């Protein structure tokens, strides 16, 4: 089966690598491809939207006419993993801790309100151990991470992290077949990619 990583901008390489190792550990033969054009979206049984600059990815997706197709694909039930910038793109409401709301192009699929740079700037990026429902404890890397200010069903929080400044914050959200994280699992673990692949292989 074919799984894709949106490869317009960001740490695409690490996701491809994670999928490859996840497939190997799960003993599934998966073909991992980069998605740079709209037509590479079809026939995907799983998708990942990488970390990076959400504004850049948004603008590029928009100008390359991928944005809408992406929305359709995600809504059509393709299991999707979105990390950091990915999560921002999926959210319905996005604002920035410093410059307030940002009129940036969005996919607006995830029922969540996202606040960018909530932890402060790059300087405040950190590592932490996070308990994720259904996965266990993972070493999480928060890089200019956003937080999910609030979620509404069917989206629900599956992980929390407490941070001295931001207090207790939601670190990951799940909405049916969509997994959105504020941190970067692809730098430390393959757990999330395994989850997505199992979803794609059709078992809960």
């Amino acid at each position: 089966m074919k799984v894709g990583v949106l490869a317009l901008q960001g740490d695409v390489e690490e996701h491809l690598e994670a999928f490859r190792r996840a497939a190997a550990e799960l003993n599934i033969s998966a073909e991992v491809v980069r998605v740079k054009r709209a037509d590479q979206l079809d026939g995907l049984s799983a998708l990942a939207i990488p970390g990076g600059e959400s504004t850049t990815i948004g603008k590029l997706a928009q100008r390359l006419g991928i944005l809408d197709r992406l929305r359709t694909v995600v809504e059509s039930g393709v299991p999707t993993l979105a990390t950091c910038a990915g999560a921002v793109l999926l959210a319905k409401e996005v604002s920035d801790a410093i410059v307030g709301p940002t009129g940036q192009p969005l996919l607006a699929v995830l029922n969540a309100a996202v606040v960018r740079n909530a932890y402060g700037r790059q300087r405040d990026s950190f590592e932490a151990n996070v308990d994720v429902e259904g996965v266990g404890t993972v070493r999480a890397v928060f890089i200019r991470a956003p937080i999910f200010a609030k979620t509404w069903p069917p989206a629900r929080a599956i992980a929390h992290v407490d941070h001295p400044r931001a207090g207790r914050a939601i670190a990951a959200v799940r909405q049916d077949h969509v997994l959105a994280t504020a941190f970067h699992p692809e730098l430390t673990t393959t757990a999330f990619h395994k989850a997505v692949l199992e979803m794609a292989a059709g078992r809960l």
Partner: protein
Amino acid sequence: FTWPRPYPAEEAGTVKVKVGFPAMLRNGVIMDVTNVEQAQIAEEAGAVGVMVLDKLPYDVRKAGGVARMADLKVIEEVMSHVTIPVSAKVRIGHYYEAFLLQEIGVDLIDESEVLTPVDDQHHINKWFFTVPFVNGCRELCEALRRISEGASMIRSKGEAGTGNVSEAVKHFKALYRAINELGAAEEERLRDYARQCQVPLELVALTAKMGRLPVITFAAGGIATPADAALMMWLGADGVFVGSGIFKSQDPRQRAEAIVLATAKWDDPEAVVEAQKMVSERAAMVGIDLKTLKPEELLQTRGL
């Protein structure tokens, strides 16, 4: 990654975090800006970051005198008007300008040969900082030396402010030829190499194993057209810095968008064509033919 750890500090600024961040800039363009308007133009154009300067390299070349870090106010103003990472240059060896930038929360610091150095012996020891650093290099040894001082990102020096990309091409090829040679060297040869470059063995071994620099490497110096940008990506750059090429041209807005597009879609000629068409040759910055520069006007020889 198991680097030795200097001070006891809590979990921020770990190596993974500092080296991870540039990974997020992949396929991106960082543009030199001198004020907010230019920064917003850069953001709308889809830049993944802006580099705040007092004067563009081309003007630095003209003005002479002592060139320092930009105003903090200007930098903060920029930081509060754009959402993309904001970075700034510091004079080589000037720890304190670096502290200040880290203090006001700059996302990336460039210890750059474009400014007037304050120390002609040592570069800043970047392990002391939680903010990632980027340094310029002309060939592999320089790059490895910077990494062993704690640089989390590397760029080619090229010859800033000339609008001629040929030096950048030369530096990138030199970089990758050396890396390929390492790929095949066995233990002993690595030892030699480590000695010549005066860097630890593990770093060389790691570079050899990965077949690339262990950190993100951008192209910089003389990029003026989308084609130049795509070329550098094609040569193996992870992204590009554009200096005077954009805001010294007559069509900065489109040129910015075009270069962003060309960088992101470098391996898709069709899109690069799109990008190339958004700019016109007449509007480009007039370049400087390298043969006309006197040796002491070369910026690339600064730093060690």
